[in-house]
């Protein structure tokens, strides 16, 4: 693997078999299909798409928390190289320390009877990363300070906190094991805009100071645009376009990315209704459309799109797209 890639998915598929109705084949949810992405060390990698497109599943597969049905996910930092598909035992335990998830809401995910200190300390204790209570407390205080939580906060229970503070607790918990890789799944989706900016700035500054690599998942393209240096756009289990952020916005190539962009309501009251509307809704991943999966909603779909799966092609350096006609449509 190239030296500066931290984690890569190659031809990755994640399938969830559903309970069958007796005879015949069991239906399968094809949540991720044939995914190729490389996340560079120290990058802030954004993953965007409508709900149901498979973002959470892809993030979980990269944390080895979803089944890898086909293909591989390889993690490689300065110390170890792991093929996640076959990872188990002590190596899997070690990986759990290196790769962390930021919960959307620690209050929903954790016991309301735990103090903020206990919530942040739990990963240290479960993984046996510290040898004394003093060491644990010192580590918790250090990380809490980074996330602007003071000693008084640490003694309280999370229900007493606002949405922004809870998110900072979540971030502290993810940071405490000194991970190399963090998946932040819809970390600001539930926050008010006035608070959201604060959490985004905190994540960006942690990334700059610590060099931790982030996979930042969001359904909001404007949030992604302001936070991430690289963006992958997902539709119905597949990545349809990926590029450095500035390129994705200046040389948008895939019709789905274009549609997502134009659906964002403009802040200018004098620019109304010029959006290129996307018809219909995302189809079911149990029976995805043949050929290009976007063909049922794409304004440019042609016969070829219903027959032939578009190739994952490099348009220019670092800019990939999966559409038969991206040159013609540019």
């Amino acid at each position: 693997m190239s030296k500066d890639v931290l984690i890569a998915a190659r031809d990755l598929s994640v399938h969830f078999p559903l309970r069958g109705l007796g005879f015949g084949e069991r239906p399968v949810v094809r949540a991720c299909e044939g995914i190729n992405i490389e996340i560079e060390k120290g990058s802030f990698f954004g993953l965007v798409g409508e709900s149901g497109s498979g973002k959470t599943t892809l993030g979980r597969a990269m944390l080895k928390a979803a089944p890898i049905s086909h293909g591989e996910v390889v993690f490689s930092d300065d110390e170890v190289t792991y093929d996640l598909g076959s990872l188990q035992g002590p190596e899997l335990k070690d990986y759990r320390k290196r790769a962390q998830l930021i919960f959307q809401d620690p209050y929903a995910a954790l016991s309301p009877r735990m103090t903020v200190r206990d919530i942040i300390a739990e990963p240290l204790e479960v993984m046996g990363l510290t040898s004394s209570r003093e060491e644990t407390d010192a580590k918790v205080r250090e990380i809490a300070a980074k996330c602007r939580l003071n000693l008084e906060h640490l003694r309280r229970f999370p229900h007493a906190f606002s949405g922004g503070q809870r998110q900072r607790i979540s971030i502290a918990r993810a940071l405490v094991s000194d991970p190399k890789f963090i998946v932040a799944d819809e970390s600001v989706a539930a926050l008010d805009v006035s608070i959201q900016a604060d959490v985004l700035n905190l994540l960006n500054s942690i990334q700059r100071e610590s060099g931790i690599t982030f996979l930042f998942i969001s359904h909001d393209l404007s949030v992604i645009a302001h936070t991430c240096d690289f963006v992958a756009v997902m539709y119905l289990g597949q990545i349809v376009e990926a590029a450095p952020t500035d390129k994705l916005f200046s040389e948008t190539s895939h019709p789905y990315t274009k549609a997502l962009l134009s659906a964002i309501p403009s802040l200018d009251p004098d620019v109304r209704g010029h959006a290129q509307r996307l018809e219909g809704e995302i189809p079911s991943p149990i029976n995805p459309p043949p050929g290009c999966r976007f063909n049922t909603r794409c304004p440019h779909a042609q016969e070829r799109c219903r027959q032939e799966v578009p190739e994952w092609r490099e348009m220019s350096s670092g800019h990939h797209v999966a559409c038969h006609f991206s040159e013609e449509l540019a």
Partner: protein
Amino acid sequence: MTSPLISVKDLTLRFKTDEGLVTAVNNVSFDIAPGEVLGLVGESGSGKSVTAKSLMMLNAENSVYDDNSKITLNVDDREFDVLSLKRAQDQMIIRGGAISMIFQEPMASFAPAITIGDQMVEQLLIHSDMTAAQAKEVSIEMLTRVGIPEPAQRFGQYAFEFSGGMRQRAMIAMALSTKPRLLIADEPTTALDVTIQAQVIELMKDLVEEFHMSILFITHDLGVIAQTADRVAVMYLGNLVETGTVRQVINSPAHPYTRGLLNSLPKLDDLEAPLTPVPGDIPSPLDRPSGCVFHTRCVESDAIAERCRNEIPLTTIDSANHQVACHLAKQGDQA
């Protein structure tokens, strides 16, 4: 000037709770003209939903309105003093008659065990003198109008059989079938993907024009406001801090809170612009700040901090009908 469809004057609403009386809406006044879309914007907990529910007397049992709160509805040359409608029969004029409401979570509008069609028909039978057959015809027409494919089949289905976007459309169809004069839309697109949100906004715009109704459009999303509203009211901790046309409020915001909201938004046309949060957190409604309610988070009050802490700013209004409640606002007339 024609009289407003609905006029809210000095609305103050408190809730009795174990921890004491909580002020959720404080001295709020606004009008909505016939055919006008008023956007009500503010962070969660600012009092948008309870303000909207007041218009239909839908607030919980523990709510208390101040004596001088007044809501006046003008329909068909008749004037209704909404807060004094005590009899169920009088309240019917409002609920699902002159005013309909749609919500963020469409399941809240539908009874789970009754088909979408039966619920639509029932509403129409209450609020009009249609026969059951006519009501069914009108319902299917409405489902068609909001873009639901195979409306005749869908008529016989339950809400859980609809996708999220389709449910939203069905809720709009039901709310509009009685031809209300005012539609209250409480975060109708917040739970939807942007692509579906764009479809629903388009649909709502078409319908306002077609039915010539007014909308109170509640959202925390200023982009959605910019795309839908004629006028905008900005709410913070139960107070209206700024009211004006959508261009006044978005292009030349007069209140520091409105400016703060706009600065914290990630903008697609300027990816390099830093995101500036409004500092601090929204105070608990149990602990309302003295003076200006926004003073604990205001970054513009430095020179007059003392005054902001102690003195409640009056609402001033300029010649273009732009209203703002801030000590820094240019002296204009008092609203």
